[in-house]
Structures are given as C-alpha cells and as structure tokens.
C-alpha cells in the first residue's frame, strides 16, 4: 500500500500508510487520522479514499484549500510522487518500489499531449529544477579517436556513422590489401558509440579482442583496424 510522508519546511514529521477500504482524514482536529496542528489547516480539511485500485483525494471544502503539485483541487486521483499541500505542510504520496501501481484509466491524464514549452519551463522553474533546454546533438558528449599508430592527430566522431576502410569515401581511410572498402563503422547511438565489423579480411580488434559483429565502445578502448591503431575517448 502507498505511503504519505508529512513534511514541514523540508523536515519529515511523520509517515503514514494508506490502507484499502479505509479513509485517511486530514485536519487540525484530534479525530483525524493525520492531525496537523496549524491554524492554516481546517478542522476537517481533506480526505483520501481508496476507490477501486486507485486513491482519491477530496478537499472537504476547507478554508484555505488543498493543492496537488501546486494546483488547487477539489478532488484528484493520486499518482506516484504527487505532492499535496495542506496549509504550510506537505504530504507526498508514493508507492513502495515493488508495488503494483494502478493502471491509469480514462480521464486520468492518459491522453498523450504535447507540452507547451513555456508551461514546461514555468513548471520546472516552480519545482526548483534545472531548466531542460532542448537537447540537441551538439550538447551530447562526442567521442574522439586518437591515432596511436598509422596516422597522426585525432578524429571527432560527430557523424551518426563513421566509416573506416580502404575506400576513399571512408571518413577514415586505412590502406591494406586485406582491408575491406568499408571495414568498420562506428555508430553514434542514444546510449553511446557502437563499433561494427562490416567486411574484408581484416577484422577490427577492441582491446585485443576480435570483433565479429558489433561492440559498445567505452572510454579509453584501444581499437585496431589493420595497420591503424586508435584510442577511443569521450570528450565531456
């Protein structure tokens, strides 16, 4: 069952477990399950009921209102991480890590929508979070191949795909009778770089191991392609 964590000015005061079939009442008076002794809180301020497999917060027409994630609500289906503000206190609603969360049914924000960029920033700003600038490829970490043998300098792997081989159209040309026109490609993927063997008698090696298909590249990997030798590093 989910838990409610009561905090005041970033200090945790108490933790309550929400139980099925039993309402959790919140208010200033003693007969509430969660009692908050503060003048900003009404005697019977709000309650949380277990309905079906979800939990519903209802404001009991309190004087100062109930807020979920900084929005005034009269009733609200609680979801993982919701932050309920009652007066100056905050209750955070969260499920246990392994607990099955209810499916989001109709009318409970299951509709996909596009976030307006301004609203998004405002919301994040309010939550005290770092602004999420639209990520573009320039901000992703870039991999670099430094020649250890067979050439000089370094090559920035800014392309989505970098070809290594004998063909003059390769980004990195390595000569050799056994070298394929394109012997190796390095792909830039969301989670990092991946090196693949393409063709030719010369198979690449990463840290001394022959690559028959593909392998994910890590910082400081040593790559052998025929007579050329590189070190792969991520430029942070």
């Amino acid at each position, binding site marked *: 069952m989910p838990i409610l964590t009561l905090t005041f000015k970033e200090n945790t005061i108490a933790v309550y477990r929400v139980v099925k079939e039993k309402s959790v009442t919140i208010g200033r008076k003693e007969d509430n399950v969660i009692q908050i002794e503060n003048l900003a809180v009404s005697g019977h301020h709000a309650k949380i009921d277990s309905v079906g497999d979800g939990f519903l917060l209802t404001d009991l027409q309190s004087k100062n209102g109930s807020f979920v*994630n900084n929005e005034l609500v009269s009733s609200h289906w609680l*979801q*993982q*991480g*919701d*932050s309920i503000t009652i007066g100056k206190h905050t209750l*955070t609603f969260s499920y246990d890590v392994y607990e099955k*969360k209810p*499916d*989001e*049914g*109709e009318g409970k*924000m*299951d*509709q*996909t*929508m*596009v*976030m307006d*960029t301004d609203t*998004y920033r405002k919301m*994040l700003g309010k*939550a005290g*979070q*770092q602004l*999420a600038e*639209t*990520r*573009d490829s320039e901000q992703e970490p870039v991999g670099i191949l430094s020649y250890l043998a067979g050439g000089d300098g370094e090559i920035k792997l*800014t*392309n*989505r*795909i970098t070809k290594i081989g004998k*063909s003059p159209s390769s980004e990195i040309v390595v000569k050799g009778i056994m070298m*394929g*026109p*394109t012997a190796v*490609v390095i*792909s*830039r*993927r*969301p*989670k990092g770089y*991946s090196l*693949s*063997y*393409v*063709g*030719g*008698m010369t198979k690449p090696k990463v840290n001394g191991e022959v690559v028959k*298909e*593909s392998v994910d590249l890590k910082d400081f990997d040593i790559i052998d392609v025929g007579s050329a030798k590189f070190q792969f590093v991520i430029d942070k």
Partner: protein
Amino acid sequence: MIDEGLGFIIMVVIESAGITDIGRKRKDNEDSLFLDNDLGLYVVADGMGGHLAGEVASKLVVDTVRDYMKRFKEDEDAEELENFDETLSKEANRLLSGIKLANQGVYQAAQSNESYRGMGATLSMVYFTDKTFIVANVGDSPIYLVHDGSIELLSVIHNVMAEQAAINPNEAELMGEKFKHMLTRAIGIEETVEADICENQYFKGDILAISSDGLSDKVSPDEILDVVRNERPAKACQALVDLANERGGDDNITVIVLKVTDKHEKGGIMGMISRIIYPLKKIFH
C-alpha cells in the same frame, strides 16, 4: 489490421509484420503504420488531438513519409534536399527531409482547419540502406534493436519525464506518471521539428521492433525481447498486442517486428570477388 511479408533490399532479406489494434478502452484508433520490405521502410505514428484529428494526423505523417521515400526508389536522381547535413549519410538526409515535409503537412492542416487545431503525431521509423539501417524518431514511440540476445532502445524518448531523467534521475522519479504522457516534441505542433537519428550496421538475426506507447506502457523491453526472439514476426506482433490488451489495453496498440533473416556476406569468395571488382569499378568510372 495485419500486414506481413518477406522481401529483398539489395543486400538484405527481411521478414516483417505489423499490427495496429484499437485496444480495449478507446473508441478510435489514432495510430497508423506502414511497412514495405521492397522499400526497406517501416513507420509507426501515434496521433493525438480528439475528434478524429489524431487519426488524420498520424495517417498524414505516415503517407507523407512513405510517398517521399518512394520517390527516391523510383527515381534515383530525385534530389532536392535543402540544408544537407554533412555529418549524415545521403539516405539519412532524405529521411530527415521526409520528416520535415510531414511536419509541414500536419502543421498546415492543423492551422487551416478549426477541427484539426492542435493535432499532432509521434513518428518512429526504420529505413534500410544497402549496408545500414537508419532509425529516426520524434515523440515517444519506441524503436528497439535486438542484437546478440539483448535489447536496446535506439530511439530517443521525447517526453518530460525522459528529458528530466537525463538531467536529474532522482527528481524525474518524483514527477509522477502523468508526465510520461507529456511530449516535448511531436510532428505538426510547431512550424519546425527536430528528429533524433542514428545509423547502424545490421547483422543477420538482428530484430527491430517499432511500437506505439500503447504497447510500451504495458509490456517491458525484456518481455518484448523474449517474444520477438522466440516467435516469427507475425506471431510476435499478435502475442505482444494480446499481452497489452490483457493488461488493460488502455491505448491503441501498434507494433512492427522485422527480422534480418539473411545478409549478403562479404567474406570468403564474395569478399574476393568484391575486392577484384572494386578496383575495376574505379578504372571504368
């Protein structure tokens, strides 16, 4: 709707299948899909914006991209690319142009018709060239690669939660489920759109799965891995859709599964031949 087939694209043999299913809760199916082994093109779009607008948007996206890519198949010289990105292959540039065109189409349709206002769609696609496959996406429809027994997400999820997770994993966890369905990018919402793209080498036995979030919200990547490894594409698609429906079917469910069943190996004799032909080609050119 189910579609399946076996086809050849220059160097590769692909077995593929795709299904779109309305699910158990929605009245309309706003997803669209397209797959063609001869073209080497596989597309899923998940539309949004009620009263049929979502359907219109996703269909427009899929049709635009399909027709655009067909042009190059029919006429190799049909080049009219603006803003050619030097860091990408020719084919990847074509794909991005197709996405831009689809975005313009949906955006204009949404602006010119009151009932379509605010409509949009996600777009996730895979395109095979003779040696590589290109993955491009806008929105949250995932594209998975199964290679060597493991599954990897090749698309970039453009929603609030995923983007926050990239910055601050702890806070993203606290943001709650609702942000999962809040996209930061989609086709047709703004005048321009930027897609994420990557290009990869393929190998015999590689499997790709493209789906809408109706599947990925209900079925984990490991479960997808298990199904696609053990079943042929058509049966795998059906099994995945059934699984999502058994778990509620809250959204439309669309999935394309494709398997690289054969690849023109360039080792051995073929390798020798290509090494002989290659210099000859250079002489005759």
